[in-house]
């Protein structure tokens, strides 16, 4: 019966290989994928007809069909003849099914290459036989290695253009092997191919008789990837708590690695609470066991506090739990990474974690793999960094587990994904640095002084009048018997921050330290008046988040730049304009105006005395100080 045969064939199933093509610009990556799709007959007649039309219009191959156009699906890509973003394509042979990500060669689009590589098990690294190993070949190889790809096919492409020359092939293979030696690949298999004409792609070519190895497709069909997945320990990131009614509480998620059975003991990594698995629930019935990749809902014997973001493991195989770790980071945003700045992190199902890169230990030159000193990471640069998170997080080193050792970095204002990280090792155990509890608290100290402690933060351009107004406010509060302290930018730079300059990274660190000092003083019950240009929103918000919501009062001292330049009380603007000072806010460094300051002080038509009085009124309105 044909229907029975159909069902049986489907039932048998196939395993899948996920791979990417990568390498330098124009090495023939898209052409190769197009060729594979075409030769494995997954392109339908109407699509072939469209390809012929497209080739006539956009093709880069004269009168022949341009197979790259099967893959380069965006209008901009077809017009420019390049790949901009990853394309995901599928094809199936009798032995395997394949999901391939075709990635762009242009350095500008490296983040899209990394996107494609993150889930791949194998990479085909293409090299143009005429050009040999290029910087971009090395960059992509390095990223593949960092992202945990262990199998590489070195496709020496356009072999037709070097007359199928064996010496040329051998030399490129030799060069590449020398470079790749330290990258930790388990296998590197070189194959001479012509993506355009199909040599050694799905059939052995008779033009390369000197080549004895397999053709590309044979190799992709036969490479053993299963045995790589060494028996990993059980990890289950809780994705969603399923609580339809009072009688059911299940933890939905996908098993990241290992397996778990009903009755097994588990631990919640962060809290250390243990219990047993009661049932493994699916709509198709309860499962005796769940394996890596299964999406299930687990119920537990005991009611313990578990939420989205928790990581479940076996008690004798716990992951790391800490708030500081070292990691490789690929930077993917036009705005560079600045050490000390706050970002949002996502690790596993734990989202929205506040944290920062506390130090860039070094940047890695992708060409030489040399370690270089760096204060920042620019677009597509790779660094090794220390990361601190606001809460302890559970993870494994990326080398051990790709699922539980990876994280992304998100910008707090634009929400763009700005970085991708691979955790190397924990820096300390969070549990060892429990905070020392203090017996006299902030509220007692404040009560003694009969005031509400807070941080009054004056921000604005140099010469806007911050220090003048802050000083008068301080005098007025003093006269009202308030306990205050005034922290001023220039003064701090003479002491605590005298090692810092005016680069973006140093400005961030400057404000971080000031913020911590201001917080300690507020803890002491003081009204802390701060006067700092503090040009970046991110750092002002970092300080804001150090104290309770009502304790931070941001005052935007708003004086137009022209007016500040006209006043130029310290002669700094004229120096900046003549280039004698670099990175001067408003001239060659940015000032990000506050979006929602507690008080917006427009200075133009009022005296400093009036402005200070207005600030005092705000403090009274907020019951920070009491009016007479």
């Amino acid at each position, binding site marked *: 019966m044909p229907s029975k045969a159909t069902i049986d064939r489907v039932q048998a199933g196939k395993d899948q290989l996920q791979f990417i093509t990568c390498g330098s610009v124009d090495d023939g990556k898209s052409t190769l994928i197009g060729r594979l799709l075409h030769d494995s007959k997954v392109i339908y007649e109407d699509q072939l007809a469209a390809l012929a039309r497209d080739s006539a219009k956009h093709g880069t191959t004269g009168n022949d069909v341009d197979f790259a156009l099967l893959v380069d*699906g965006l209008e901009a890509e077809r017009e420019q003849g390049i790949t901009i973003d990853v394309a995901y394509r599928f094809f199936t042979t009798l032995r395997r099914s394949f999901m391939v990500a075709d990635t762009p060669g242009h350095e500008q689009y490296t983040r899209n290459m990394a996107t494609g590589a993150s889930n791949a098990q194998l990479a085909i690294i293409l090299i143009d036989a005429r050009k040999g190993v290029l910087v971009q070949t090395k960059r992509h190889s390095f990223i593949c290695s960092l992202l945990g790809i262990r199998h590489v096919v070195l496709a020496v492409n356009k072999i037709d253009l070097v007359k199928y020359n064996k010496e040329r092939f051998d030399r490129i293979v030799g060069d590449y092997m020398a470079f790749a030696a330290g990258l930790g690949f388990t296998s590197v298999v070189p194959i001479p191919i012509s993506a355009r004409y199909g040599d050694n792609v799905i059939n052995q070519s008779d033009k390369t008789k000197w080549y004895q190895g397999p053709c590309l497709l044979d190799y992709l069909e036969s490479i053993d990837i299963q045995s790589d997945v060494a028996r990993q320990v059980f990890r289950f990131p809780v994705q969603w708590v399923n609580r339809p009614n009072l009688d059911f509480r299940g933890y939905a998620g996908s098993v990241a690695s290992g397996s778990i059975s009903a009755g097994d003991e588990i631990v919640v990594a962060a809290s250390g609470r243990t219990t047993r698995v009661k049932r493994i629930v699916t709509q198709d019935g309860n499962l005796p066991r769940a394996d890596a990749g299964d999406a299930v809902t687990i119920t537990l014997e005991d009611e313990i506090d578990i939420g989205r973001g928790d990581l479940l493991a076996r008690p004798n195989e716990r992951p790391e739990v800490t708030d500081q770790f070292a990691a490789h980071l690929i930077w993917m945003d036009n705005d560079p990474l600045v050490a000390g700045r706050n970002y949002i992190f996502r690790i596993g199902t734990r989202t929205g974690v506040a944290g920062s890169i506390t130090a860039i230990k070094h940047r890695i030159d992708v060409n030489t793999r040399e370690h270089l000193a760096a204060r920042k990471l620019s677009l597509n640069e790779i660094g090794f960094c220390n990361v601190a998170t606001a809460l302890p997080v559970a993870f494994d080193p990326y080398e051990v587990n790709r699922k539980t050792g990876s994280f992304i970095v998100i910008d707090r204002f634009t929400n763009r994904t700005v970085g991708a990280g691979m955790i190397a090792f924990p820096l300390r155990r969070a549990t060892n640095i429990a905070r020392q509890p203090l017996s006299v608290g902030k509220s007692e100290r404040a009560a003694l002084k009969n005031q509400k402690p807070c941080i009054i933060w004056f921000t604005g351009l140099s010469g806007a009048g911050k220090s003048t107004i802050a000083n008068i406010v301080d005098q007025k509060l003093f006269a009202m018997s308030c306990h205050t302290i005034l922290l001023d930018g220039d003064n701090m730079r003479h002491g605590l921050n005298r090692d810092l300059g005016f680069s973006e990274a140093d400005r961030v660190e400057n404000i971080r330290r000031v913020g911590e000092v201001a917080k300690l003083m507020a803890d002491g019950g003081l009204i802390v008046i701060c006067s700092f240009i503090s040009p970046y929103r991110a750092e002002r918000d970092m300080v804001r988040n150090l104290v309770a919501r009502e304790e931070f009062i941001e005052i935007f001292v708003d004086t137009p730049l022209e007016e500040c330049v006209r006043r130029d009380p310290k002669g700094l603007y004229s120096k900046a304009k003549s280039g004698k000072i670099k990175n001067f806010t408003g001239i060659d460094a940015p000032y990000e105006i506050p979006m929602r300051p507690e008080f917006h002080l427009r200075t133009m038509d009022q005296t400093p005395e009036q402005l200070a009085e207005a600030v005092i009124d705000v403090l009274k309105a907020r019951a920070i100080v009491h009016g007479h």
Partner: protein
Amino acid sequence: MQQSGCRVVRSCLLLRQGYRPKRKRCAKWHLTNNNSVSKKNHMLPKHLRRLEAESIEIMREVVAGFKNPVMLYSIGKDSSVMLHVAIKAFYPAKLPFPLLHVDTTWKFREMITFRDETAKRLGVELIVHVNKEGLERGINPIDSGSALHTRVMKTDALKQALDLYHFDAAFGGARRDEEKSRAKERIFSFRSAGHVWDPRNQRPELWNLFNTQLLQGETMRVFAMSNWTELDIWEYIMLEKIPVVPLYFAKQRPVVRRSGATIMVDDKRLRLQSNETPEMRMIRFRTLGCYPLSGAIDSDATTIEDIVAEMHTATVSERQGRLIDTDEAASMEKKKWEGYF
């Protein structure tokens, strides 16, 4: 189980009466107590199990990460699978979001019947939205042309509905294997305010670490079925015994030839031309949409097994029958820029 949980909201009709949408969060959960150990899922071959699990993970991610998600339900085979998987994802809870059907008023009659029956059978909330202005302007696929009809009655209508109900994430059943600009899509496809897609500026999407953060007015389209192929869909329907619209199965149906395609005469609105006489042919559809724009294929496949077998020998793509993609080169990408699903 309770079938009364279904609520069909026809926002076009309600709007006319000055209806302000007040969508209640699903308060009704239902629980099936099923302690039997499963045998069924282990019958799924591993490639389908993997796809199913991946889709479930994506769906849960959306429910955990967004305030007000919705699932676009187009009544077709992909939607049927998506809905089937969604119910598994949240079991034993009820589906934690409504379905939204953007009705152009030109769907096959059998589709509408199937839609309402499905909502009822599964006890899910269904919102039906029609672009009322478009209807009043008399936009239709025959006189207005497929491009204008699609833009007004599908793309604009969809944007209206998303804005009206303040949905921040919308599931779509589109697959990467459908079309070459679809192959370039992320799973979580970010849309700036105004539903604009900028393919040159997509968020990097590494591992399964989706970035679900949005600012005011921004939305997410989520393609939970991205990595399924047409064949996977049919194989899954076969093994999971999922009901689909009968139009997918071959039957004698009245058709005419128009613009090189075989068009079924579903009602009088097709307005037959003098040289057109409907003939009965054994046909079926590989994709379903507005009936005057959906080309049928000649086929004898009357069972799912037949369809799967036919798929293995197909020589043209499923989109070939769609009249809307041939309007102009790169037309799918252009429609997607404008906010089409």
